[in-house]
């Protein structure tokens, strides 16, 4: 049914037609007509953030935890430029977003008008696709196409820049029968010949390992279920990237823990020594591979990815399968079940024996302390005290993020929201706001550092406004801990500008915002304090005072390969670990 309406009304109508329930945004001159249209309906709920970067991260948390497309609405100029970090973050972590930006009226574009910037120019490289809407006739198609592009193929952020005169203009709107793009058709089904070859190679493996990533999470819960099925059918070990945590349950005996720079000893050595690597929805990022020339030198590699440009980009693989992880896994499981191949049980037994030897090294062990809270201990207790609840975890970026990935065990996908590719400090709190919006009854915890949290602290105000009882669990070591750790390892312990001086009193800060503040520095009181946090039905800032100079181990240092990790009880002088050349390229 075609109806006459303004461009601004079309924006809201298209959102409704797409089933959008929440949109994160901040008003301004160039989007006032859209805010006016939002005001006159109640299907799409607007969440007013305190900074546009927060709006995008909130939409990311919302999208990542719910599997829906996250929506953002910001004004022209500074509204759009403030959103750029969030858009880039979503681009690198493949998060589906639709971000609507206001623009100055069409006739003023290019005149350096008030709050004008070249939004499509600025966001061209940090979005999957973007549009400048030049006429009202194009608007309905673009609005729906944007949702298709954001969520199909490798997901990503899409920007729609709408000049103010187009928002005011009247035109006819009809919900398109299909919102497909006219030509963009990502390949979903994998090539059956290659899938069969992959199954044969998997079946012939003597030292296999599954290496999975965020693509499995993006593919939906069915993909995780199929992954579990295939891994159990084969009996092979599995590891995952930071982005893929939760797609395979951490409590399972075949789970090796996270791999990569701060991954477990057993996961990294299994990657290094395997003969068949089955990479599903991961992209051989440099935090995973370490030194490329020493990366898993003896293995044949299978790579399943929906983005053809990811295959053979960093690492040459033997079988590259373009397709959606869920569809390819479904085919693999079906072939495996039908053919019931005989795996080499003796070789697998040997392999598992070696893995168990590496596990016995207990690489996540640490020396606990009765006087000072060790950050690892804090995460372990947080996990133990929340694991039976409906819990979602977001993080900021740094040591606390890695400790959270190492010590918090995830059993389900979509429970873990972190900035992986871009490494954006300040991600966690707004992402928690978005996550809580999608899951009102759940326990949402932002595991934070005292430095990161200050980057988007203002979103505490958003949490209060919408009664979102997010919990900010700060591992406060008074340092930008990861920076300090690298300075210790690489720069002779010269802690240049990494000390968090002049910190606010986080308890008072929580109270100033109208939330609840808790401080804990005694390991004996930690459990009690965490329970108090969980039981407080409003936003909480938990200032957990932890050991100041604890390093995050295990770690693959600069200049080393997977089998040259530093383990936690390393007692030598850490300043000698990395050579001069390695220092240049950290």
């Amino acid at each position, binding site marked *: 049914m075609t109806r006459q309406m303004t461009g601004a009304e079309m924006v809201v109508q298209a959102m409704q037609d797409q089933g959008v329930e929440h949109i994160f945004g901040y008003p301004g001159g160039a989007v006032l007509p859209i805010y006016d249209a939002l005001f006159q309906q109640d299907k799409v709920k607007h969440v007013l953030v305190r900074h546009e970067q927060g709006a995008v991260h909130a939409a990311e948390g919302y999208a990542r935890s719910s599997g829906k497309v996250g929506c953002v609405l910001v004004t022209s100029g500074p509204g759009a430029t403030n959103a750029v970090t969030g858009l880039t973050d979503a681009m690198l972590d493949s998060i589906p977003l639709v971000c609507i930006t206001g623009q100055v009226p069409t006739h003023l574009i290019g005149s350096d008008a008030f709050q004008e910037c070249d939004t*499509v*120019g600025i966001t*061209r*490289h940090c979005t*999957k*696709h*973007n549009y*400048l809407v*030049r006429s009202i006739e194009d608007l309905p198609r673009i609005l729906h196409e944007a949702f298709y*592009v954001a969520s199909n*193929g*490798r997901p990503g952020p899409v920007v729609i820049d709408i000049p103010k005169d187009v928002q005011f203009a009247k035109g006819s709107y009809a919900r398109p029968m299909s919102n497909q*793009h*006219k*030509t*963009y058709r990502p390949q979903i089904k994998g090539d059956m010949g290659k899938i069969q070859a992959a199954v044969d190679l998997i079946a012939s493996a003597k030292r296999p390992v599954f290496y999975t990533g965020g693509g499995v999470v993006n593919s939906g819960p069915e993909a995780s279920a199929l992954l579990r099925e295939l891994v159990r059918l084969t009996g092979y070990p599995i590891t995952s990237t930071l982005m893929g945590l939760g797609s395979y349950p951490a409590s399972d005996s075949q789970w090796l823990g996270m791999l990569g*720079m701060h991954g477990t000893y057993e996961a990294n050595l299994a990657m290094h020594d395997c003969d068949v690597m089955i990479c599903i929805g991961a992209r051989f990022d*440099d*935090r995973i*591979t*370490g*030194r*490329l*020339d020493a990366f898993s030198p003896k293995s044949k590699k299978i790579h399943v990815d929906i*983005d*053809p*440009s990811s*295959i*053979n*980009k*960093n690492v*040459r693989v033997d079988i590259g399968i373009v397709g959606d992880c869920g569809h390819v896994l479904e085919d693999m499981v079906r072939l495996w079940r039908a053919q019931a191949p005989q795996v080499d049980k003796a070789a697998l037994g040997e392999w598992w024996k070696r893995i168990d030897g590496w596990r016995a090294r207990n690489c996540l062990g640490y020396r606990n302390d009765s006087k000072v809270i060790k950050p690892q201990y804090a995460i372990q207790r947080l996990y133990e005290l929340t694991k039976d609840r409906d819990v979602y975890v977001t993080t900021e970026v740094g040591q606390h993020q890695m400790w959270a990935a190492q010590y918090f065990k995830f059993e389900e996908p979509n429970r873990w929201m972190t900035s992986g590719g871009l490494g954006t400090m300040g991600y966690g709190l707004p992402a928690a706001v978005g996550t809580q919006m999608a899951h009102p009854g759940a326990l949402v915890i932002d595991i934070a550092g005292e430095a990161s949290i200050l980057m988007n602290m203002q979103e505490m105000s958003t949490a209060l406004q919408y009664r979102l009882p997010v919990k900010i669990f700060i591992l406060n070591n008074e340092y930008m801990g990861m920076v300090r750790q690298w300075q210790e390892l690489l720069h002779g312990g010269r802690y240049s500008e990494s000390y968090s001086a002049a910190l606010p009193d986080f308890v008072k800060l929580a109270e100033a915002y109208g939330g609840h503040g808790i401080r804990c520095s005694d390991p004996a009181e930690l459990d009690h304090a965490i329970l108090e946090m969980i039981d407080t039905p409003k936003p909480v800032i938990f200032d957990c005072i932890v050991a100041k100079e604890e390093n995050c181990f295990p770690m*693959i*240092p*600069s*200049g*080393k390969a997977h089998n040259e990790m530093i383990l936690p009880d390393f007692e030598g002088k850490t300043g000698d670990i990395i*050579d*001069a*050349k*390695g220092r*240049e*390229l*950290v």
Partner: protein
Amino acid sequence: MNMPMKSHYSDAPKAQPQARHTLSVLVDNEPGVLARIAGLFSGRGYNIESLTVSETEHEKHVSRITIVTTGTGQVIDQIKAQLDRLVPVHRVVDLTIQGEAIERELALVKVVGTGESRVEAMRLAGAFGARTLDATLTSFVFEVTGTTDEIERFLRVMSVVGLVEVSRTGIAAMARGAEAL
């Protein structure tokens, strides 16, 4: 401390043989599409040796972009994959791996001179099959079409007889045989 370059980031790859490839890219003729493609090359550090863009199917708003680039085999594969994942890109075809393609470019060449050099310019232009588009008592503008090498040769000889200005189109390319893109 004089260890070889080792780092958590991979070392720069050893120099590998580079090859020149001609790519035909069919795209939606929409605003910004050229910026997207040019930006992809600059953002990811790829070379563009020549770039030719024109709308080829007016009703369908389809443009054909011909890109000449150089790189290692892996880089060329990445360029094609990265181009192909741009939303407005329909198809990417590597004409170079399909056998020798037909490649032509056009140049306009202004030559100024009198006397013997003027006569010589006229004679050479005839030898290269160039057309004379404009002539005054002291100048010519020639149009010459050919492969890049042929144009280069023409420009080299013209530079001796008073070449003052050149305008070139970049390459238009097409695969041989009955098959269409």
